[in-house]
């Protein structure tokens, strides 16, 4: 009896000692399954802070390597990162799991199961009504999680009671930094709340599974920022460029004579329209595969407006097959206005600009068909083009049309140069609208672009020279932009 009592007292004393040690020093040396193996030295000086320049829900952890990192037989294999979470978070995890299960069921019973497969019969278990009910339950659970998440900041103040350490991730030996990027979605199991106390610890783990914990880090908090300082160089460049643009636009407005290099492709537009009129054949204008949000397409709208105005004046037929329905709607408005400006609103036909398809090669087939049936005198390709560029341009060349193209897609420019009579290379597409209009305000922006290019060339030359010396990287750092 006495022996049993003695053993019990010894066990109690040992366990008390271990707990006391963890609470005072924050170092856990008990957490090992293999007692006979020597524990590695713990990672030291664990620090952490909010990840800068992000939307929040992320922290950066740093630590000094364990003394046993890369040291002989007891070498540290990896570092395990743990995070303390309050009980509320653990409870919500159960709800999140339920949401995930419901979502899986919904997915499998709608479109996840192959027809005729063994699990196909599962569809019949869930009627439409049942699925609607499941949708309803899922939505209620999501609402519940979102509401309860607001209490996480308060719950995290209860540390160290009423919570548990959860495994986050592992990093290989030699690593001294870990960025814990949590999800911003409250329904995700990896959700990290902003402005809540966060506690972390890092374990050094050996090949044999023995591990030692660093001191506990915390509380630290994550939060979102209102300005991304990594993008300051871009902000400076945009501000300088904006001032340059405004300066030259004002100068042009005051009547300064701004020289603009002639663009062969744009000068050929008028001739090409004249040729079409003489031949009695239509003009085909292709806006490419870009959306209305692409700058190349926006520039193309302006050129289309000019072309349509000339076409209306010369009373030639214009064909504009489009790939994107929004582009079609905008292009219809542009062409309509151009006919109105030319004083010939009656000549405008609704089907001048029409939608074809949103499938890339089906669109190519349709446009090629138009080229071979209608035999347009002139084909104008302006906008964003991809693999279809050469198929279109070669078919146009075979049909004997004069071809003018312009794109900002680097990979497609060589194809257009080879197959078309005139090509606007890259930025010339954007300059075309200013060149066609000869309006001072538009020409002013072109001047600003030219001077900005001159600045970039000068900076590139300075960079090349400085790169020959040791301090060259300081210059490069000035222009570094991180995400």
């Amino acid at each position, binding site marked *: 009896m006495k022996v049993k009592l003695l053993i019990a007292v010894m066990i109690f004393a040992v366990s008390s000692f271990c707990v006391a040690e963890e609470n005072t020093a924050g170092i856990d040396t008990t957490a090992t399954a293999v007692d006979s193996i020597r524990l590695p030295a713990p990672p030291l000086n664990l620090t952490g802070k909010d990840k800068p320049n992000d939307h929040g829900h992320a922290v950066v952890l740093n630590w000094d390597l364990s003394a046993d990192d890369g040291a002989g037989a007891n070498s540290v294999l990896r570092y395990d990162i743990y995070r303390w979470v309050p009980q509320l978070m653990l409870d919500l995890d159960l709800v999140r799991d339920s949401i995930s299960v419901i979502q899986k069921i919904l997915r499998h019973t709608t479109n996840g199961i192959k027809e005729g497969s063994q699990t196909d019969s599962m569809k019949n278990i869930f009627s439409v009504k049942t699925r609607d009910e499941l949708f309803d339950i899922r939505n209620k659970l999501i609402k519940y999680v979102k509401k309860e998440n607001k209490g996480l900041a308060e719950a995290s103040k209860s540390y160290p009671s009423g919570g548990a350490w959860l495994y986050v991730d592992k990093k290989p030996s030699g690593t001294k930094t870990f960025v814990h990027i949590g999800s911003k979605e409250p329904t995700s199991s990896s959700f990290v709340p902003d402005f809540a106390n966060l506690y972390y610890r890092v374990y050094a783990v050996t090949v044999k599974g023995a591990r030692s914990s660093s001191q506990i880090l915390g509380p630290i908090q994550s939060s*979102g920022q209102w300005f991304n300082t990594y993008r300051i160089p*871009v902000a400076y460049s945009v501000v300088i460029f904006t001032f340059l643009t405004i300066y030259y636009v004002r100068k042009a407005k005051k009547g300064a004579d701004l020289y603009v290099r002639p663009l062969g492709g744009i000068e050929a537009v008028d001739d090409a329209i004249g040729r079409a009129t003489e031949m009695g054949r239509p003009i085909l204008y292709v806006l490419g595969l870009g959306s209305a949000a692409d700058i190349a397409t926006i520039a193309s709208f302006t050129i289309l407006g000019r072309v349509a105005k000339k076409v209306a004046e010369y009373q030639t037929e214009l064909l504009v097959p489009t790939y994107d329905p929004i582009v*079609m709607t905008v292009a219809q408005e542009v062409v309509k206005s*151009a006919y109105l400006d030319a004083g010939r609103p009656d000549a405008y036909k609704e089907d001048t600009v029409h939608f074809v398809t949103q499938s890339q090669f*089906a669109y190519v087939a349709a446009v090629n068909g138009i080229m071979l049936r209608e035999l347009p005198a002139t084909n104008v390709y302006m906008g964003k083009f991809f693999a279809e560029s050469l198929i279109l341009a070669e078919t146009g060349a075979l049909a004997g049309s004069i071809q003018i193209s312009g794109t900002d897609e680097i990979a497609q420019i060589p194809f257009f140069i*080879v197959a078309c009579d005139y090509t606007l290379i*890259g930025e010339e597409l954007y300059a075309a609208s200013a060149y066609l209009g000869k309006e001072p305000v538009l020409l002013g922006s072109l001047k600003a672009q030219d001077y900005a290019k001159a600045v970039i060339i000068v900076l590139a030359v300075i960079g090349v020279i400085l790169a020959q010396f040791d301090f060259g990287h300081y210059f490069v750092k000035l222009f570094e932009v991180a995400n």
Partner: protein
Amino acid sequence: MKRQIPFVLVFLAGAFMAFQYYVPHESSEFVYEFLLDWTMIIGIFALALGIWSLYQVSVDKIKLRKENWAYSYVTLIGLFIMVLFGFTYKIGDSWGMYSLFVVSLMALLMFLIQTTISKSKGLWLGLSALALIVAIAVTVFDDSWGVAFMTSEGLKNTMFTNFADFVLTPILSTMFSLLAFFIASAAYRAFRARNVLASLLLIAALIVMLRFNPYMPFGLPDYMMKISNWLMNVPNLAAQRAIVIGIGLGIVATSLKVILGIERGYMGKG
């Protein structure tokens, strides 16, 4: 006023998007994602306009008996039959009277087209009504197949998948494969040694082509590999970067012009 409101909207949306790039905060992301969702919604509505435009152009072609007008029927039938297959699915072991349903709806489409182009509208309208009644009757009384608007079950309809896999995909692949032949003809035109520059282009192209040709019967000498790599990594890359810098500046300048209302071409005001 009709012009001012769009400009104000463009300015606000453009300025917000420009500032959003520098603001990583969640609220800014939320508005950004919200606006992106709206572009998708607008896109879906615009698609309806697009389909209407395609329908009108095709019907006009049939009406005016333009060249190859008969193909417009193929376009319209293809368009509507795929929509139909995509919204219907099999429930039981057999399709039941599904084929009668499809035929009656296709007949309805044909009769409606005839109504718009024919002089005897009454006859075609009557036939359209008859086809519609048949289609509705089959839908109501036949339980072997169902209509799915809210779920994607129609996408598993074997007719839908067979048309997509065995008709559409091979046709699209055929169109894409034409590119190989067009590259050959374009290369022939590009590499004709008409002058010094064209000859240089030809030589450079030959070196690079030999470098990447997997069927070279003999190993290329080392210096050829080096020349090829140099051509790709130095002059080619330098020229590409120059173009990219120009494009970048052009994009910023055009965006500024659009936001500030200097560039109005997209509104039909050049």
